[in-house]
């Protein structure tokens, strides 16, 4: 947890430095720290190519699909607790109740969360975090920010991440090995679900950096509005 916080501080400082050194040509107003961000992006890309992606590929090859589904449901169930809190903070008690219901059902009937029985019962999984809560409270995106290892964020979502980390129930579990295993499973599970999408990015984007950035920013807006963002005026 402390490492993450140090990283954040480090990023902010370097981000400001990156922003200070003006870049030639067009600059996206949403991305004043582009130069710094591109540096971190390249670093992350390298780490991914040499470390994370191979691990994720190995994981999908070595672990049969049912077991991967258990893992995915298990970490998802832990995440639902914080999702419920955020739904409550955003003034959506019905969604919060549904999330609590999900955790109760999946932790019991779903055997410690390894089976997502609740989804089959019609309680759909929501995706909330403190960054979205801040957005609902009226905090703007702030500049786009690429964090080392953690990837794309906005200044708002990057700051909210500190709260997300503090609130993570796994962080309070007494056994360090268990905490580490769950942390590792989360990373590998998330990355393995993006296998395929990464290949599409490779073929589809003229510039991977900007394509990822634009995608991330739109995706966040979509999540903040719970899947119904105001429709942008089409220009032809």
């Amino acid at each position: 947890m402390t490492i993450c916080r140090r990283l954040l501080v480090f990023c902010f400082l370097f981000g400001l430095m990156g922003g200070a050194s003006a870049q030639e040509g067009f600059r996206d107003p949403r991305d004043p720290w582009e130069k710094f961000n591109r540096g971190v992006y390249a670093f992350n890309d390298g780490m991914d190519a040499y470390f994370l992606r191979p691990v994720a590929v190995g994981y999908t090859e070595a672990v049969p699909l049912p077991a991967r589904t258990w893992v995915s449901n298990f970490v998802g169930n832990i995440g639902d607790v914080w999702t419920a809190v955020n739904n409550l903070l955003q003034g959506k008690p019905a969604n919060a109740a549904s999330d609590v219901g999900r955790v109760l059902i999946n932790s019991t009937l779903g055997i410690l969360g390894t089976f997502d029985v609740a989804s089959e019962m019609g309680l759909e999984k929501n995706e909330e975090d403190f960054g979205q809560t801040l957005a609902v409270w009226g905090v703007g995106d702030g500049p786009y920010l690429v964090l080392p290892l953690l990837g794309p964020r906005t200044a708002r979502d990057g700051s909210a991440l500190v709260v997300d980390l503090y609130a993570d129930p796994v962080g309070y579990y007494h056994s360090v090995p268990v905490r580490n295993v769950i942390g590792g499973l989360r990373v590998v599970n998330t990355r393995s679900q993006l296998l395929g999408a990464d290949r599409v990015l490779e073929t589809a984007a003229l510039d991977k950096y900007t394509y990822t950035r634009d995608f991330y920013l739109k995706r966040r807006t979509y999540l903040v509005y719970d899947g119904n963002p105001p429709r942008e005026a089409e220009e032809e």
Partner: protein
Amino acid sequence: MKGQSMKFLKACVSLLAAVSFPVFANDIAPDAMIKQVSDEVLQIVRSDKAIQAGDMKRISEVVDAKMLPHVNFTRMTSLAVGRDWRSATPQQQADLGAEFKTLLVRSYAGALSNYRDQQIVFKAFKMKPEETDVLVRTDVRQPGAQPVAIDYNVMKTPDGWKIYDVAVAGVSLVTNYREEFGREIRANGIDGLIKSLRDKNRSAEQAKK
């Protein structure tokens, strides 16, 4: 007299058939059209040995034959290029369309080649009869992963409903490209954009060999 009226009736029936048949073919609802096309494509992807082995050429052929007739590429390209589209010459528009199509077909084919146990679930769809521009929402579900929302923007044309934008996980393909294309045009003009699309397609072509 009887023969006369019989003939008249026959003429009426054939006229009715001639008029109503194409109307019927075009009248297939937008959600039904997408369901039909995606079912067809997925069935081929799942059963074709060459595709399972990763033959990109074969997948691209399937996308070309099954998917493209239901896509309005001109509109897709013009939306992706944005306001600079109008200032492009017909030749530039044609070049942009061709290169963009190649890029999208390859990307889509790449995404399809990952399909194994995926299942497409159509969300409830309702439209008023007078609507000509609708959104068909689907979820792609796969075991062990969060469902991914794939939504199709579909417009009515004289020959049926045509897809002109696809949103993946809530992000419109067309708007994402519009930002990328806009930057390229600002820096190097429309010809610069055509060139970078062409280079991208060519390098992908090279990588395949």
